[in-house]
């Protein structure tokens, strides 16, 4: 990856080689390789007990009888918890977390009990012996456009507006239909239900000491988790502690506490003072820690013969659970991507008897960049224009819905640079005309985008220690993303000291409060707090401090926040090979170019970007949670049946960054890179499959049967 970073935004003059912008290996790499970095379940405990969750086996209804006798007879079982004997929680406002409070069942796979035992094996075996009798009620567990009852949520996730409208899209579509040279495109696209599936399963250790609760949890936000758990148990926040130095991947599924954290704390109440260890099985993770809703996306584009859009629309239909709303903001990117005078976006939800959806990498943007970016490809094809050129022609000079200027917008530069690097200029636009042996070959492109999110409230502390180092503390989370590394780099430059004089501490509520590792905002928000704390430290204590000197500061408010629209942009180019006999899709080349402000560490940044692209490839070709609507069962609930892109599926993958100096986003000039890589990838793959085969698939994953069906209707000839 080539990264050119501007030095103009660094907070202090550089007296020595800067840490920020340097290629630094991960601070935690050695400990992880050696197994010394403890994950949540691994923290050593004195005499731990083990809890295993019991899940509902019906999708909707009431428990009418509970039989725990057989479970209690098992050797090593300490107790069995159900709604009949579990303590009442102080707050049941969050229905996802209000477990064991009553006999109602809201979805299949909901927590209805737990066994606490001396060993994990005994807990698991006894959990299989707990018997519930249910009065089942009619349920609906599958999103079916045209059948599911839809409603209009008050807002979409993250406070996004539910609907938006400018001009008259219907009229623009009508006018385009009437004009023989114009195109009115109206297609529906579908993305699958998907699960985050981090490698580290969700796990919690809970310990009560009197009225003090300590949790070792796998979390993207120790303070956020703590605040929620304190509320659920009616405790002062100061009485709840959470520790999470390392996270084995989260992707959003550890962004909020889920029901198992409450269960661990409830279980630990039963064993006065002994720690309780609870780990979810992979299968349990499918119903308990969130997922991305399936989406149906009606996309409308009206364009003249020159490819310029006169109208753009996106109507997203999604599911949420009946007990808790999560409105994936899939229409959001359509509000920002392209200029057009007539615009309309909507979000509609079906509330179903399904597990509670939640955050998954680039919520909204990831699914929302699929339909429209395939539609742009279809538009280019129908007009006989190059798909890069069509996107360039529709670049928005100002934010289309708000009229605000962009703090920086380099979509066109990404498209041009990507096209140059990929060799796009030699591309023959005709579909299904390239063949090497059994392989049909094609290329595709799509744009990427992700907003610059701000989360107020992070605080960092700097203290000079008698070992001559600066202890920098903030309750941030490293999900494997590199926070341990890049926050130390930021601190070193802000304090103007070598990296080894920074003693970073994160992942503990004993440290100053940090916002969630989410919305691609962590590095910028925590880093800005660290910069502010370092400045304050130097102001107070100068460059020759005494041991014990300290300072603390909060992420400063951004004075430019209301003036500008702030987004990162990118472009992804894909080559696919499709087996002409079987329809198998292989992706020999993935190339992304991103303009995401300043890159703090090119090594960890590259991991984030190619990781996002790989996850986008996985969405394109593999990932789909299958619902059996008869039982409300997520059938393929393990990693054998829920396919995630494997090493053999990824060949050449490149991520490049465009030099982008944005003085407005934050003092670091960094826009966030955790999520943009997953946006647009799936559309680029689908567009390349079309170019290779002539088959236009409007849903992901593009499994071979969908391609094969199209190929049978007219396989391209051999060359």
């Amino acid at each position: 990856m080539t990264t050119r970073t501007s030095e103009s935004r660094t907070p202090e003059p550089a007296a020595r080689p800067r840490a920020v912008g340097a290629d630094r290996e991960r601070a935690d790499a050695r400990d992880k390789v050696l197994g010394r970095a403890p994950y949540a379940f691994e923290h050593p405990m004195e005499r731990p007990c083990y809890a295993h969750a019991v899940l509902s086996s019906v999708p909707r209804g009431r428990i009418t009888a509970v039989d725990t006798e057989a479970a209690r007879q098992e050797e090593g079982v300490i107790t069995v918890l159900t709604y009949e004997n579990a303590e009442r929680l102080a707050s049941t406002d969050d229905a996802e977390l209000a477990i064991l409070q009553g006999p109602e069942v809201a979805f299949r796979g909901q927590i209805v009990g737990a066994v606490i035992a001396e060993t994990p094996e005994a807990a698991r075996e006894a959990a299989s012996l707990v018997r519930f009798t249910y009065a089942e009620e009619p349920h609906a567990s599958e999103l079916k456009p045209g059948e599911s009852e839809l409603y209009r949520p008050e807002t979409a996730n993250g406070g996004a507006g539910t609907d938006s409208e400018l001009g008259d899209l219907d009229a623009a579509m009508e006018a385009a239909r009437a004009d023989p040279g114009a195109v009115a495109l109206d297609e529906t696209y579908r993305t699958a239900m998907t699960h985050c599936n981090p490698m580290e399963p969700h796990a919690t250790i809970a310990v009560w000491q009197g009225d003090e609760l300590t949790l070792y949890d796998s979390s993207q936000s120790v303070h956020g988790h703590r605040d929620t758990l304190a509320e659920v148990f009616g405790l002062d926040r100061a009485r709840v502690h959470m520790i999470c130095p390392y996270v084995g991947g989260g992707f959003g599924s550890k962004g909020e506490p889920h029901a198992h954290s409450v269960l661990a704390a409830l279980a630990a109440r039963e064993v006065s003072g002994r720690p309780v260890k609870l780990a979810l099985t992979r299968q349990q993770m499918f119903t308990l820690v969130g997922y991305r809703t399936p989406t149906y996306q009606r996309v409308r584009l009206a364009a003249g013969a020159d490819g310029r859009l006169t109208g753009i629309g996106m109507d997203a239909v999604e599911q949420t659970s009946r007990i808790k709303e999560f409105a994936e903001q899939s229409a959001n990117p359509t509000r920002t991507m392209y200029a057009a005078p007539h615009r309309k976006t909507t979000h509609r939800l079906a509330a179903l008897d399904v597990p509670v959806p939640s955050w998954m990498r680039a919520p909204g943007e990831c699914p929302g960049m699929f339909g429209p970016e395939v539609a742009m490809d279809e538009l280019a094809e129908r007009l006989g224009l190059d798909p890069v050129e069509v996107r360039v022609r529709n670049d928005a000079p100002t934010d289309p819905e708000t009229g605000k200027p962009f703090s920086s917008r380099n979509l066109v530069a990404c498209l041009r640079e990507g096209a140059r690097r990929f060799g796009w200029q030699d591309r023959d636009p005709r579909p299904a005309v390239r063949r090497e042996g059994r392989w049909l070959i094609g290329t595709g492109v799509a744009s990427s985008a992700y907003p610059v999110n701000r989360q107020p409230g992070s605080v960092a502390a700097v203290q000079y220690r008698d070992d001559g180092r600066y202890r920098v503390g903030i309750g941030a989370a490293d999900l494997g993303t590199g926070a341990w590394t890049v926050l130390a780099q930021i601190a070193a430059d802000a304090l103007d000291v070598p990296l080894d004089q920074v003693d970073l501490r994160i992942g503990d509520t004993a440290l100053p409060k940090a916002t969630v590792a989410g919305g691609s905002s962590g590095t910028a928000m925590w880093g800005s707090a660290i910069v502010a704390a370092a400045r304050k430290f130097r102001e107070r204590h100068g460059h020759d401090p005494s041991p014990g000197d300290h300072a603390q500061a909060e992420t400063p408010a951004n004075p430019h926040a209301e003036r500008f629209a702030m987004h990162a942009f990118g472009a992804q180019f894909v080559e696919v090979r499709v087996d002409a006999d079987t329809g198998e899709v292989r992706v020999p080349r993935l190339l992304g170019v991103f303009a995401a402000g300043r890159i703090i560490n090119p090594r960890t940044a590259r991991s984030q970007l190619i990781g996002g692209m790989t996850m986008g490839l996985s969405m394109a070709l593999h990932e789909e949670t299958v619902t059996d609507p008869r039982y409300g069962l997520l059938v393929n609930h393990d990693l054998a049946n829920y396919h995630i892109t494997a090493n053999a599926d990824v060949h050449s993958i490149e991520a490049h960054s465009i030099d982008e100096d944005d003085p407005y986003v934050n003092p670091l000039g960094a826009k966030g890179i955790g999520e943009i890589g997953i946006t647009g990838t799936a559309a680029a793959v689908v567009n390349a499959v079309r170019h290779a085969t002539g088959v236009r698939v409007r849903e992901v994953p593009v499994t071979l049967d969908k391609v094969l069906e199209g190929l049978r209707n007219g396989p391209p000839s051999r060359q």
Partner: protein
Amino acid sequence: MKPFRYERAADAAGAVATVAAHPGAAFLGAGTNLVDHLKLGITSPDLLVDVSRLPMDQVEERADGGLRIGANVRNADLAAHPAVRTRYPVLSQALLSGASGQLRNLATTGGNLLQRTRCAYFQDPSSPCNKRDPGSGCAALEGWTRYHAVLGASSHCVAVHPSDMAVAMTALGAVVVTLGPDGERRVPLTEFHRLPGDAPHRDTVLRHGELITGVELPALPFATRSRYRKVRDRASYAFALVSVAVALDLEDDGRTVREARIALGGIAHKPWRAERAEAALRGLPATEESCRTAAEAETADAHPLRDNAFKVPLVHNTLVAVVRDLVGQGAPEAPGGLEGSR
């Protein structure tokens, strides 16, 4: 997981005697499938008799020019064995297309034959399944059937056998050697696995306490021209949607089929020997058209389910493609390498 006793067998006869005497006992090989089942609650034996260390781990030459593969030969070792690579490339390819490197280092030949279906409902103890819980019904029949059978299924079970190795061995005419309470017997692999009928809980014809000790591969000189093609949902570490194993014996003209051995995977409760297709090809030039006709003959009785109708054309296309490749590869070289003597 239910507590169980563990015993390490001293010899095969002792292992057989122990398991035969205990209705709740099971043999333990590498455990790559059984241990998952213990955790998931699919099966709960009260005694495991570990046979993985018994000295059944050699690949031996047979007098007729074939091979005898010990039941404990690891998948990775079998795939890499020079005699297998040169004389039965279809088997080496099938083994290498299965599981992952780590699993292949552990998994045994006998255990591979006995691995159970990955039907998602079978693996979910909260779902009805006649294979796991006889008489409880089949959730797959009208459920998610992307990975299920199109041939030979019944209204009691539509699961498929997951092995790649067994498909290649079925094409090669392998014979399973077992030791039971009544002594040794030899079962052709085509008769070893069962169709589900009304007793899908029985995957094979093995009796309780009967142990696989080895697999015999007959001499098949033309298998030097053989190939395994696995079609799946990702490039590695996925079970077959459809797989095709073919060994082709061509006349001197390099295109007329003297004999073909064909087996299909991913489409039935057992590795599917495609005898109709073999018969249809015999004596004909191996053209795109003749292969397609042969494949269509094999799937004439196919009964696709909700999600797997694509498997029928996929079998046709894949068989055509494999034969095309085999004919195109030219005359097979005489077996060479370290163990190439015949």
